[in-house]
């Protein structure tokens, strides 16, 4: 009886102490990599690129006076007709990400304004896994150096945000086959597709 009581005490006390001290096998959070906040990083600026393209500041044209925001989804055939709206299988209209009042800002799901230079904070509203990976370095691209504070490219640098998938294009030239072999004969050897 006494032995049982001792066992009971041990099995209750040890986890309780662990939980209180937040240590050992019953700690609240054993996964210290997840708990670590992302290392500092600097995202490349987008505004200068947009300015070069002649699109920014948006309020130059969209002044909410002569140009009022129109939430109706429609085909754009005057301005911005070169934009492909493939994002989200065409479910979105401009104002899903662009603020209808302050036209030089983006807006997230919660209605917070986000600068064009910080678009990675916006994209994460839906693409949260990619956003986490981006912050920690498993998504996106580093610039300049592998060490020091991370300089990384903004989402819109690689993705056309209005049509974010990478498009198929011609691959750079294939390697030359070894002397005596042609690409065709190699393909036949491996039972692959034959091409010129």
């Amino acid at each position: 009886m006494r032995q049982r009581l001792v066992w009971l005490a041990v099995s209750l006390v040890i986890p309780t102490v662990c939980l209180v001290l937040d240590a050992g096998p019953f700690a609240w959070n054993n996964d210290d990599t997840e708990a670590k906040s992302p290392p500092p990083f600097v995202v490349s600026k987008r505004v200068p690129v947009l300015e070069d393209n002649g699109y920014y500041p948006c309020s130059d044209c969209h002044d909410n006076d002569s140009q009022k925001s129109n939430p109706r989804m429609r085909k754009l055939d005057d301005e911005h007709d070169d934009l492909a709206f493939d994002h989200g299988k065409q479910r979105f209209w401009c104002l899903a990400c662009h603020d209808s009042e302050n036209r030089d800002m983006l807006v997230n799901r919660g209605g917070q304004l986000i600068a064009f230079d910080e678009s990675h904070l916006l994209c994460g509203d839906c693409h949260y896994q990619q956003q986490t990976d981006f912050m920690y370095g498993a998504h996106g691209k580093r610039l300049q150096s592998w060490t020091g504070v991370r300089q990384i490219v903004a989402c819109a640098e690689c993705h056309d945000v209005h049509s974010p998938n990478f498009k198929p294009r011609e691959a750079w030239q294939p390697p030359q086959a070894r002397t005596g072999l042609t690409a065709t004969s190699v393909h036949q050897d491996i039972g692959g597709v034959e091409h010129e």
Partner: protein
Amino acid sequence: MSEKQSRKQITRRRLLQVLGLTAGGASLTAAANKLTDENTRRTIVDTLGGLFQNHFSRLSPDEVGETLARMERKYKEKYKQDVRVEATSALPNTLFGYALNLSRCRGYRDCVSACVEENNQSRDSEIQYIRVLEIPDGTMNLEHADHYYAGEVPKPDHFYLPVQCQQCENPPCVKACPVEATWQEPDGIVVIDYDWCIGCRYCQAACPYWARKFNWNEPVIPAESLNTQTHYLSNRPREKGVMEKCTFCLHRVRKQQLPACQEACPTGARVFGNLLDPDSEIRYILANKKVFRLKEDLNTEPKFWYYAD
């Protein structure tokens, strides 16, 4: 143990050989030095210097300097422009590793193109350090992968797996070399002394990743597209009859720059970093992504990981 001792013993024959070679080399160099015509003298001294050049790891700092200067003269004569040859040594506390996101790679071969230019690879041979394998979705048979694909990519129902030197921690190529012309540097990169290589290609047979390439012909690099920033152990122009391989752009990464393939990748599939830095991206990937290495069962311990998300 006894065998090792007997190898270390200096026999009379060996002593005479070494003495003879040294005396011969020294007297030839001295004789050449006395020649009045500066160009002739240079050519002869350089030729002799190349002939008697020691293994890179046995060169004293002075000899390294002489060797690099001699190479710069040689390349200048060949390519008619100033070529810089460096011998930067490994940075402290670095062990380089690579991670590649297979769900991002689209098979464009931009990395291959950048690599060829950066590393002064022969433009008319089959030597390319990176092979991008085109593999049908749902399979992982490297034997049935196609690296001669052409045209528009990505092809439907295929994924792309670039393979280059995996910088094994337990490199079979180093063990295979009979003359120790290839070795692992302190930052984990396996390098070749192109001047010590005898071109036997044992390392090529030993490598399970087809990372090592042999110069069957005299390499052809148009002078205008030569990368003039070179390193002794990395991208300096090679000769016919020697091996070469990817060095993670050693000449760049030792200056804290990124490898050319990482820089060229348009999709951000490539992540390069220091495995000893716990805050590096590559350490995050290793800790949080499902990573794998090629042919892990061979116990080569590659420092090149693939992941998908």
